């Protein structure tokens, strides 16, 4: 089974239809909706979105790459995000990130070859009391340590292999 979702143009159209045609102010909202369904932003989706909103495809791409929240390559099934906010930083977040990079053998922003994990970082999610914080598939895991994270990733990897 391929872990990359197949490009479904009908799905893209139906997402776009939820936003007013020609309204450039919906651009970022549209990108979010597309990514929520496709897990990343493929070229075809951006082209169709540009057409729908009445902006150039180059602008669409330029705007999308301006933001940290958008991804242009297929992402892994699991997304592990390390919060790099200040509160997390002073409590040791860089060490979490390094640990995850070692364990997954990818750099921050990358995806493992088997498309199982994507490792990302975020500049604060406003849960500073929980720091240092890892977010695994949307769930906040507070007071993380490199050792705890390592165990968690191992478990997820085992589960994924099955």
């Amino acid at each position, binding site marked *: 089974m391929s872990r990359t979702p197949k490009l479904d143009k009908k799905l893209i159209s139906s997402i776009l239809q939820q936003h007013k045609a020609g309204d*450039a*102010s*919906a*651009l*970022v*909202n549209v*990108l*979010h909706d597309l990514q929520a369904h496709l897990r990343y932003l493929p070229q075809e989706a951006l082209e169709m979105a540009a057409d729908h*909103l009445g*902006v150039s495809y180059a*602008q669409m791409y*330029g*705007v*999308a790459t*301006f*933001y*940290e*929240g*958008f991804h242009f390559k297929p992402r892994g099934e699991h997304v592990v995000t390390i919060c*790099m*906010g*200040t*509160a*997390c*930083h*002073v*409590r*040791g977040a860089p*060490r979490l990130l*390094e*640990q995850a990079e*070692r364990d997954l053998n990818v750099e921050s922003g990358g995806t493992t070859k088997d498309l199982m994990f994507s490792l990302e970082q*975020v*500049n*604060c*999610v*406003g*849960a*500073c*009391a*929980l*720091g240092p914080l890892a977010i695994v598939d*949307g769930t*906040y*895991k*507070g007071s993380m*340590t*490199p*050792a705890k994270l*390592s165990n968690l990733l191992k478990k997820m990897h085992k589960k994924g292999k099955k």
Partner: protein
Amino acid sequence: MQAFKTPKQLQAHRKKIIESRPADRKAIAVCAGTGCKAFGSLSVYDVFQKTLKSSGLDKKWELRATGCHGFCERGPLVLMFPSGTLYQKVKPEDVDEIVEQTLVKGKTIKRLTYQDPVTSKWFRREQDIPFYKHQHRLVLKQNGMIDPTSLDDYLTIGGYGGFLKALKMRPAKVIDEVKKSGLRGRGGAGFPTGTKWEICAGTKATQRYVVCNADEGDPGAFMDRSVVEGNPQSIIEGMLIGAYAMGASKGIVYLRQEYPLAVQRLGLALESAREAGLLGKNILGTGFDFDIQINKGGGAFVCGEESALIASVEGRRGVPKRRPPYPAISGLWGKPTNINNVETWATVPLILDRGHKWFSSIGTEGSKGTKIFSLVGKVNNTGLVEVPMGMTLKEIVFGAGGGIPDGKSFKAVQTGGPSGGCLPESKLDTPVDFDTLVQEGSMMGSGGMIVMDESTCMVDVAKYFVGFLKFESCGNCTSCRDGLQRLYELLSDVCEGRASMETLDLIEELAGTIRATSLCALGTTSVNPVLSTLKYFRDEYVAHVKEKRCPAGVCKSLITYTIDEKNCNGCTICAKKCPEQAISGKKKKLHIIDQQRCIKCGICKDVCKYDAVIVA
């Protein structure tokens, strides 16, 4: 909910609802803010719900999932009304006991109450706990009292009273009221809100916009998140008042996508306000049209800057533009646009409701009212504190914050987000207001307050912020884009022992140009962390440069991990956990770290239960 067709109908409904909920009504408030949720507060809520129902107590006790109470360090929090008893770190398995002992018998469960880590004193009531006692909570207080998804809850605590009052006034009078209150923008720059409104209202136009800037990008700050999640109606009411005063018919909330719960709660709140006839066409039959839409951000710190925010909403890259023209004159699509941040909008209803005199009686001469700070880092009581303007840093960090954990000593506090300055112990008596902080080389910013202790390396901290900002720079200006990258390289040289004293001079020279010649505030203030640490903690820089030593034991290139002969009992745990197999040693014998293989990840120190791993 019914749609209110006149102010009178709304007023009548408010009255009815307030009367139906007397102040002494018994209620349990489980915090469902992001922090407590992550600690498992929703399971606590579920167990409460089941237990109350099965015991029939659900008739007597109202159960509420509320917004953030601010004391995130101690979550999940459970607050009981009207007694004011606060239980902290509550687990689902504690619920039975709480119901049995506290709800039924009225007894306090001591182990669930708060014990001050410094004085070891126990506190039952929320209001007595030092963390809360030092605060003056106007905006935040409501968070813990209401269910953020319930418009009726908001009405109970006086919600929409400010709007109803505004409707009775002429728009100019509303602006005047805000002006007289002395409210200054809580987003960072501290521009007088009333004056901003006046300029926007005074610009001729067929269409005006009001925008709520909820793009809280400062790492280590989450007060806006907590207000949007915990009391979204207050923002809607504030924007309604502003729109009425300025003659705007469209509102936009520019909200961070990293805050999914806030997006959801605000969406619900907008829907219920629309259902109640508080948004839409002909609001309360007054002929006033206004509606609000949510525009999500995409993850760009610079979009908190007004002109960049506008570009982003218009579907362009979030690159700041030179001002003037100011948004109040030419903003979204060239129309007059008033942008205020979350906290400012949430404060407006209170001012209208209670009057400008009440508001301006709080705070200092130049900075009125209260300000919410996100107190984080190396401090005992992490969380949100709302204090009157003019309180000293010391009172905040050591009073509400409860000082530094683990017996360590205070080193610095950084205010104002990533581009704020780091102030040392000698500046702890600085009163916190817009102007004094700037004088001391820092700034108010949106209210991040990060406490650092002796184990924080100030060069590393400066490098961290510069690293953040070079990544978040829009990349337009040479000085900011390339300047910050170079500054980062130079700071890395310091941290990694490659720097000379000339490096420090070049850092200062470069920082001067970045500050003087960048277009927007991100660039011009970006060097504050560097310049303030160079000023107040120069000896740490010099130690890195001259002695090739990191006094705080943080900078990897300048430290080594060793195992202490005396403390090591050969438990082998460090050797097992070392990712590089750099530790060797037989069971019950002294272990040794191979310095060639050690990657200084620090795991050995984390796992050692006998303090045998030494960093030097």
